[in-house]
């Protein structure tokens, strides 16, 4: 799959097509502008809410900011950064997302290479097991792992959450990396083997460098997934190890009076994913396409 997800290939059009298209185009443009506005308003609204004081948010909507720009304040963010629970959870989010991503990429690539290029008995059966595990809902592991982690002292720790995410991230990672490694030309590996290189050397020096685009896709996908997770952390962390998502959701009970923490906090939690997304969206799209398009 070489097509970037976010470019459009234009076909050539006949003259009649163009004349007809000219009138159609105006309508399409207007419709899509309206759609785009509908899609933007929610996020813009949250952002503007986060730049208004609690009092303003309780008495009027964010759109009044266009009439009274004086409402603008960074007070909410200033408060947020002085809130130890929030800054601590931001740090926890990093401590969960980064190691998870590294482990998933490393273990997934290793296994993916074995499935792609090493002949061993039962390989296809094992791969079928991995494919089955792709769709297993997280829920089936909650109760057993809560007990297991409880008995070995991992419950409530960052490490426990990381292990959970790594395990459930692996099937997709193995799959993605295997499919990518299959496309590496076999002659390259044969040549290296004839030169007497071990499989480990081949993996680290030949295959892994070639796999950079796939690794980037996988890493970004896994990072965003882990960064944005709330469910797993809701169960497996405590107030010391909770990530940003869990810290923010605990404010939901008093939605109206906590709108300052909620809006600014939610936006804070979005900043890193948005930067990653806009910087690397090509790889993210490719991770999504990886399985499907051929």
């Amino acid at each position, binding site marked *: 799959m070489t097509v970037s*997800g976010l470019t*459009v290939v234009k076909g050539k059009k006949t003259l009649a097509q163009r004349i007809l298209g000219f009138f*159609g185009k105006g309508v399409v443009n207007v419709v899509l502008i309206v759609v*785009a506005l509908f899609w933007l308003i929610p996020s813009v609204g949250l952002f503007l809410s986060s730049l208004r004081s609690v009092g303003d948010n309780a008495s009027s909507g964010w759109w009044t900011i266009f009439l009274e720009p004086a409402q603008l304040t960074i007070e909410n963010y200033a408060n947020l950064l002085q809130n130890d629970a929030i800054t601590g959870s931001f740090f926890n989010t990093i401590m969960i997302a980064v190691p998870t991503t590294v482990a998933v990429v490393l273990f997934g690539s290793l296994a993916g290479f074995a499935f792609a290029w090493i002949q061993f008995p039962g390989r*296809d059966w094992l791969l079928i097991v991995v494919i089955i595990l792709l769709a297993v809902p997280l829920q089936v592991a909650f109760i057993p792992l809560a007990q297991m982690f409880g008995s070995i002292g991992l419950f409530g720790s960052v490490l426990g959450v990381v292990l959970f995410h790594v395990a459930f991230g692996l099937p997709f990672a193995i799959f993605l990396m295997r499919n990518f490694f299959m496309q590496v030309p076999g002659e390259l590996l044969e040549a290296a083997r004839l030169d007497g290189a071990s*499989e480990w050397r081949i993996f680290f020096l030949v295959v892994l460098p070639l796999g950079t685009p796939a690794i980037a896709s996988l890493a970004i996908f896994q990072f965003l997934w882990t*960064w*944005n997770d709330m469910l797993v952390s809701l169960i497996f962390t405590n107030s010391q190890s909770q990530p940003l998502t869990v810290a923010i959701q605990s404010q939901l009970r008093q939605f109206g009076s906590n709108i300052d923490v909620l809006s600014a906090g939610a936006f804070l*939690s979005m900043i890193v994913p948005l930067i990653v997304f806009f910087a690397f969206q090509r790889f993210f799209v490719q991770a999504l396409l990886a399985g*499907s398009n051929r």
Partner: protein
Amino acid sequence: MTEAAVAPAVTPSPKSGSRRPSGTGSRRRMFLIALGFLAPALVLLGALVVYPIVYTVIRSMFSADGSAFVGFENYATMFTNDSTFTAIRNNIIWVIVAPAACTILGLVFAVLLDKIKWATAFKLIIFMPMAISMLAAGVIFRTIFQESPNLGVVNAAIVATQEAFGGPTAAYPGAEPREDTGIIAEQGSVGSESAVTAGGQQDFALVGVRASELPENAAQAEVAEAPSSDQITGTVFLDVVRGGGGTNGEVEDGKTGLPGVTVDAVTADGSIAASGTTDDSGRYVIEGLGSGDYTVALPASNFQEGAGGVSWLSSAFITGVVILSYIWIWAGFAMVMIASGLSAMDRSLQEAARVDGASEFQVFRRITAPLLAPVITVVFVTLIINVLKIFDLVYVIPPGASKPAANVIAVEMWTVSFGGGNNQGLGSALALLLLLLVLPSMIINVRRFRKERER
């Protein structure tokens, strides 16, 4: 997002034996090498995914605290317990509505993209919600669907539109009952003091409406016609004679009828049996009433200042709102997948059809859509798997009062096993129900893999 964000398609394995010469010693050596590569993944998958599945199967047949074997009792509970049953019903609604809506929107966007110059910008805007957490999306949607039109942008837009088109805004803000005329004000509404029997009459003498605020069509108040046995009739009028005079509570010359007022006949248990609306002279007729006593009331909507907002986050609408937030996130996924399918497509067929005089719609139906079918299927299946496991949005958006109405299986599973229910037997059964529901997609994945391997 789910882990298995995309239903996989498989690159076939190389035909066995083509790689290297294999003696028994070499086979064994290769096995050990492979084990070295696979070990970390296999240990983690075995201990943290496969073992838990087995454990959950067994645990689902034990009681809440795990002390007693109960067989399939937890599964029976699942379908008889009210909140669990609501969860299953809601999941069905989700599966029917959300994947189809996302796929159709994605398809429409992807096709229309071709026709605009700012396609890349449009794609980024629609796709962006995929990058943020469902928690953030939940906070966003909870904010925009707030009930007060002063705070929630959706209701603000609705109220503004209604006002712009002179829609059903309150007609008589500030109106009050005339004292000692048999009617009383109660929580914003005005009702008859004593019960009215079907076949009876009830007039409403109101004050507190300025003459300048009266609608243009308001005319001289008239005495209502005598009711038949299944009717209640009466007149709603402004109990003021211009220039003074008259008797309080009587329909007389110089008093104006109040048109457009809703009048409800309310039964003893508080439900509305039937309603009527006043005409230009203020007369109303409520028809089709069974014999019995009713309180006749003018509901508060007649008197409130400005129009109120719709309670989007109430039990009635909550699932719709949450599904809407899901569509906001996932339509972009469908669009990007389908658009990439479109751009990978050889357009010569479409061009040929157009040259032959096929209409744009025919080209789409006969050529583009069939060619896109595989991609659309993948998107659809992926979304179904994803929707079955939906948790965050349903956990975040509904306020406490409408949480029960919005319930889905994944949230119920969390609630009964961790969120206070502490029934890990039922929780395990629910987790297995989820596993069971995604089983068909697992089978599809495996079959696709085997088929492609045979090629």
